Structure formats: structure tokens, C-alpha cells
């Protein structure tokens, strides 16, 4: 009875094997090697651009080292149980190491403990976890991201005015650290800046964030500055600003880069984007895992840094490296 799905499966299976490391790379994968570390890399989801950059970085590491990586997100985007199952399955398979960005700082702990107990080391990437037996934690110092944003916005406003901050969603650990960093820095360094709204949550999707942003702007017509701590909130806010004819009139600092946000930056509708280095995150996480497997000492925390892109510097080579990852080259 299942002849059709089976046939289909083989077609798809043969089609989805990723190409080796392409064009002029050192071809670390092509040589015959007897011992190749098998490393599972588990993102929170697979369709966001951020994760594609992380994936590209991980692929770069794969190309440079005698390893093979398997990139596998939860079957349902952002679903905690589905992510636990992926980890479970890789423990079953007996991979050499697991690199993971946990969807939840608590729910993933039991299964990560289990991996450790089975002798599979864990490297955490991007988002923290309430467990400290990982080999290394490779991430943006999120609080620092908020601090940098506050300093940039404070300078733009000459240290005075009313600002709003739209938050992401309750329980999102990485963004709330940025939000806290922002609020604390504003309070300490810019006493004349008043945060008129800092407790509204945009929601998990761009769409929800857009609506929340619209509502916030209706209530706060006279604001001078805005901060949003991640891509969906920044995008939702940008759209709401454009709709209400406020774009360009309010100083707006956001987080992360997509084509739409970069266009907004170039057009002067956004005054600064705090950029992380997801490509570097993917690459470093896998490389730290390999170092750990090789028995080399590895830093417990690796900060991949934050930078502020502005209208002036966004197209410099330095910034370009952060926002423009050549997916075609790495992911085909």
C-alpha cells in the first residue's frame, strides 16, 4: 500500500543530500577519513533567515574540519516537545556531539542531561539554558546588545525625550536580556529620557508585533524614540511607522537584519540596527565542539559580539559580512 510514498521518499532522499563543500574551498570533507566526528546541530526552527545564517556558519566549519554535521530543527517551528524529540533521536543515533539552541531554558534540561549521561557533549548556541554542564555556550552577549542600543538611541536624542520599547513575547530569554540592558542603560546614563512604555509584548510573529505596534503608536503620538529588541518586533514597528506616517520622524533603533530592515535603514526610517553574528555563531559553536571532542580546553562562554549598523556604515565590508551571508554558497 505504501509503494507511492516509498518511491517518493527515495526521490526526495536522493535529492536532499547536501552538496559537498563547493567551489574552491579546501574540501575538508572530500578526502577519505577514517574518523569523522558526527555532530548534530539543532536550531529553534529552520525557516528564519537567522537560522539559515547559523546553518551557513556550521557548514563552513564542516568544510574546514574532518566532521560531518546534521542540521535538524524541530518538526514544528518553535515547538518545545518537537525539539526534545529531535535531541532524543540524536542520542539514540549516538552522534559524537550535539550543538543546540534550546527553545526553552527549562524544558530542554532533562534531555540535555540525558545526552551528557550518554557521553554526548553539548554546546549551547544563541540562547541560554538553566544547566551548566555544557561544554561551551556560544552566543551574543544579549544584555550588551541592549546596552549598545540604548547608547546609540540616547546619543541620537541628545539625552532627552520620550521613548517606547516594544518587547518580544513573555518567556523569550535572549530578548528580555536585551530589553533589560536597554532599560538599565537608559536609566543610568540618560536620566532625562523617559521610557513611556516598556512593558508591552508584541507577540511571537511579525504579524502580531505589527498590530501591537499600531496600537502603541496610537497611544503614544508624541514620542521621540523607539527600541525593539529583535527582528519581528523591529519589522512590525517599522511597518506601523510607515503606515502612520511617522517613519523617519521618530528615532528608531532595532535589532537584526533582513532585506526589509536594511532598506528601512538606508531610507532613514530606521536609525540603527544592532547586528549579531549568526554566521560566526554557527561556525564557532561547531568548532568549539570539535575542540572539545579533541580534548582541547574550551571557553565556557564565547561572545560573538554586537555591532550597530547605521545608514552611513551599513554597506561597508565589515557590516556587510554580518548581514549578508551567501546562502547559495553554503546551503546550495
Amino acid at each position, binding site marked *: *500500500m*505504501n509503494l*507511492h*510514498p*516509498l518511491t*517518493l*521518499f527515495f526521490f*526526495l*532522499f536522493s535529492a*536532499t543530500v547536501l552538496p559537498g563543500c563547493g567551489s574552491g574551498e579546501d574540501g575538508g570533507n572530500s578526502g577519505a577519513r577514517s574518523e569523522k566526528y558526527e555532530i548534530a546541530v539543532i536550531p529553534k526552527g*529552520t525557516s528564519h533567515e537567522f537560522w539559515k545564517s547559523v546553518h551557513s556558519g556550521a557548514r563552513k566549519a564542516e568544510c574546514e574540519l574532518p566532521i560531518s554535521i*546534521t*542540521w*535538524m*530543527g*524541530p*518538526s*514544528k517551528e*518553535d*515547538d*518545545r*516537545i518537537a525539539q*526534545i*524529540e*529531535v535531541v*532524543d*533521536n*540524536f*542520542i*539514540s*543515533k*549516538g552522534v559524537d556531539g550535539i550543538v543546540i539552541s534550546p527553545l*526553552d531554558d*527549562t*524544558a530542554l*534540561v*532533562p534531555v540535555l542531561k*540525558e545526552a551528557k549521561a550518554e557521553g554526548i557533549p553539548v554546546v549551547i548556541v544563541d540562547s541560554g539554558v538553566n544547566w551548566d554542564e555544557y561544554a561551551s555556550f556560544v552566543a551574543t552577549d544579549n544584555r550588551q546588545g541592549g546596552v549598545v542600543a540604548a547608547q546609540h538611541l540616547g546619543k541620537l536624542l541628545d539625552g532627552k525625550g520620550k521613548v517606547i520599547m516594544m518587547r518580544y*513575547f*513573555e*518567556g523569550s530569554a535572549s530578548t528580555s536580556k536585551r530589553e533589560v540592558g536597554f532599560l538599565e542603560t537608559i536609566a543610568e546614563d540618560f536620566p532625562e529620557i523617559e521610557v513611556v512604555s516598556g512593558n508591552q*509584548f508584541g507577540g*511571537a510573529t511579525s504579524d502580531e508585533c505589527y498590530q501591537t505596534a499600531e496600537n502603541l503608536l496610537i497611544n503614544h503620538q508624541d514620542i521621540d524614540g523607539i527600541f525593539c529588541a529583535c527582528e519581528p518586533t523591529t519589522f512590525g514597528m517599522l511597518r506601523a511607522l510607515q503606515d502612520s506616517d511617522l517613519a523617519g520622524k521618530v528615532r528608531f533603533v532595532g535589532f537584526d537584519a533582513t532585506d526589509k530592515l536594511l532598506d528601512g535603514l538606508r531610507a532613514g526610517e530606521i536609525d540603527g540596527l544592532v547586528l549579531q553574528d549568526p554566521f560566526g555563531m554557527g561556525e564557532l559553536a561547531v568548532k568549539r565542539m570539535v575542540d572539545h571532542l579533541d580534548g582541547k580546553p574550551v571557553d565556557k562562554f564565547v561572545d560573538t559580539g554586537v555591532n550597530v549598523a547605521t545608514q552611513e556604515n551599513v554597506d561597508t565590508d565589515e557590516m556587510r559580512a554580518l548581514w549578508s551571508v551567501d546562502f547559495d554558497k553554503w546551503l546550495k
Partner: protein
Amino acid sequence: MNELTASRPAIWLMIRPIAGPLLGLLLVLALFWFLEPDAFLSARNLRTVSVQTVIVGLGAIGMTFVIASGGIDLSIGSVIALSSVVAAAVAKAGYDPMLCAMAGVVTGATCGLINGLVIARLGVIPFIATLGMMGVARGVAKWLASEQKIDAPAGWLESIMSKAEEFRILGLPQAVWLTVLLAVVFGLVLRHTVLGAHTLAIGSNEDTARLCGVRVGRTKVWIYVLCGIFGGLAGVMTFGRLTVGDPTTAIGEELDVIAAVVIGGASLAGGEGRIAGSILGALLMAFLANGCNLTGVPNYVQEILIGVIIVAAVAVDRYRYHSMKM
């Protein structure tokens, strides 16, 4: 149907109604065993898949009754989330895990009762009634949890979902045995009790059932309460597995549960359905997801495959049904 084939050997009688899902499962097992010979059929992996089947499997037991009665319950994913949040909230308040579990199950039963009453007494069709509950239960879950997850000690609820050796019975996690036990008991209930007979009668032809003296309304209420109870239990297991009550968990899970039941040979037109088939359907989907992970096949392939398998399973079932009539 069983009487007609009474001359066949007993084992065939038992297997025949679930031959489709069984064959499908064996094919999936054979395929991944071939692709991943070391890991796929290892004890460890079988244990992993078994525990991954628990939540959908429990939901599928309740859903089989609903679908066999010609109904549908779209709210079960939200009910799972709500029950897990309630269980976590009770645990956070410092109560015993047993009380958390009961609170979760009662929550599910209450949702089921409301579904049943709206369907049976207000005459709202199941699709709409449970679509409404899908939104209500999800919303209440987020409200109760203040739109966050609830961190709480799950106590032994965590250990019954655990694969750790100290918590296993005969090599499998306790929750797996609970699921097997409930599947057997409710398989018998569906085949050999008045409730089961009435469920199938309503699904075959509601008017005829009514004329034959079946109290259709009351039976329907019980069916949805039963489905709610299983949703609640699945929610409690979700809490045990996550160790947090997450109001956004199990989004879209209702479709996994319905898919398991349909792959298992139940007809959405009602009158047919077997618990054993539904469990096999749930296992098939879990093995497929697991096998795809082990072989590194991307998730979209898995989604396409499950879609194809659902349609293929129903198509084969129709074919068998027609050839049997001839």
C-alpha cells in the same frame, strides 16, 4: 462483518481490520532499518519512539471514539495545552503530583463536557463546536499562565515519562505501559460494551440508532467527555515531559491525532474505528519522524510523506472496502 468471515483463522480476524496500518508501519520500519541499520531498531531508539508516541497515542484513543461516532474534535491540541498548564499551576502551588494529574484530567473532561453539551443539546455540528473550544481552551491556557510558561516541579510525572533505567518497567517508560493498558481497555470498551456499540451505531446511522432506542444525545456527551479525558491525560504527560506548563504547546497536534486515527482505518463518515489501528497510526508517524531525524532527512520531506501516507491509507481502505462488498 466479523460473522461473515468467521470461518477464517482467529489470528487473521484480529489482524485483518488493522492490516493497512500494520503493513504501513512494517514498511516504514523496514525502510529505516535498511537506511540506518545500527541505530534504528536498537532498544534505545525503540524506547525513544515509544515515549514519543505517548501523547499522540493517548489523544488518538479518545479521538477514535469521536470519529467512530461520526464526529470530530478539533480542540484536543488546545485541551492538551490547557491541561498541561493547569497541571503545572497546581504543581507550582505545591500540591502532590497525583493532584496535578487529576486536575489536568478534570480540566480535559470539562472541556469535553462542554463540547458534548454544545453538540448534543444545542445542535451545533462537531466541527464548529470543537473549533470554538480550540480557541477558548488555547486562550484560557494563555490567560491562566499569564502568557508565559509555568515552571513547576513535575515530581513523579516527570519520571513516568522518563527513559532513565531507574524508572523503566520491562524496558519501557511507565507512561508507555499506561498508554498500552488504556488502549487495550478502551479497545475492548469500543468493541464489547454498550457505550462502544452505541458509538459505532451513531456513527453508522444516527437516525437508525435513535429509532433502535440509542440515547444519542447522552451517548455523544459521554464520547466527547471521554475524548476530553484523554486530551487531559495527554496534557498531563506533556507537562511531565516538558517539566513546564506551556500554553503554546501542541499547536496543530489535533491534526496529528486525527491523522493517527485515520491512518488507523477509522472513517471520518463514522461507524468505523479501531483503537489498535489508531495506535499503529500514531506509531507510524512517530517512527517516520524518528527515522527522518536519524537519516538526516529534512523536515519538509517528513511533512510531505505524512501527507501522502494519510491519503494513501484512506485510499487503500476505500479500495478494500469496495472489494469486500463485491
